[in-house]
């Protein structure tokens, strides 16, 4: 598939999710149980992006030793928990990472 077709399909699926939200889905279609489960979707899906991006190196292997990303991500997580700020989380993580690779 060409890059353009890939972009179009990803755009289409994103748009259709949004359209179905306001045009097709009605409140009574979801009972409390389904709503409760759906509220866990971010917690279920984002770590699948986060963890491999931290723990897996360029050649596809799990790297624990000598991996500054782990400590930087932990610092960012604590800053995030206490500040509840998206921007503080991102910048504290990047700043710690740069500190660890360039200074330490």
């Amino acid at each position: 598939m060409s890059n353009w077709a890939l972009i179009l399909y990803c755009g289409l699926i994103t748009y259709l999710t949004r359209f179905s939200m306001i045009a097709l889905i009605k409140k009574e279609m979801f009972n409390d149980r389904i709503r409760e489960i759906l509220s866990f979707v971010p917690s279920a899906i984002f770590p699948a992006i986060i963890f491999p991006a931290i723990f897996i190196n360029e050649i596809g292997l799990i790297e624990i030793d000598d991996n500054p990303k782990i400590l930087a991500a932990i610092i960012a997580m604590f800053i995030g928990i206490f500040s509840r700020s998206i921007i503080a989380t991102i910048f504290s993580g990047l700043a710690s990472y740069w500190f660890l690779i360039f200074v330490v």
Partner: protein
Amino acid sequence: MKSNLKVFLKGIIDVSPLMIPVVPFGLIFGVLAIDVGFTPIETMAMSLIIFGGASQIVLLQLFSGGASSLVIISSVGAVNSRHLLYGAVVSEHLSDLKLIWKIIISYFLIDQAFAISNEYLKKNKDHNRYLHLVGGGATCWVIWQSTTFLGIILGSAIPEKLGLSFAVPLTFLALLVNDFRKFINVIVIIISGLVATFGYNYIPFKAYVIVAALAGLFTAMILTRKNKKA
């Protein structure tokens, strides 16, 4: 009833504070897209056609890992499934809208605009209240397109050893800050993360995002059921 322009402007003003984190997100996207090999035109088209931060970053992440198109598209669909919950909330406020407006608003229905307008829609019953959502969405659109553009330009100037790709996990980590405070969410986060990390090389077709998400949701189902019986 307030004038159409006033409601639209109110949407812009209300959403503005939420635009601060969108700026680095857009820049990072622009820089990384060039980095993994998309052309500047393709990168701009992604922001114009998809117009969704999480969708676009997942696309880049899996594309650079060599995933097939089918896996990328279904992973983007899975990432968007978190929005289904919004639909149940927002659709009742918009049920009397003409179809053409629903088609237009759908393009602008992003996290930030939704979060802000949901409050406004709850309190206001004027029939032009949906313009609040359009104002918020349009503001986000302008910020997203211009920061993508800036990212594309900066992309060639930023040295690779800065390791800016690390901003991807950080951005998603930032979206979870409120969930780290809840016990069941933390368990779900750990399960999903471990399945993705250890399954990275073993789950076929790079479908680890979907498999890990399903494992996480299954964990949530079990834990919330036990919770109720107790």
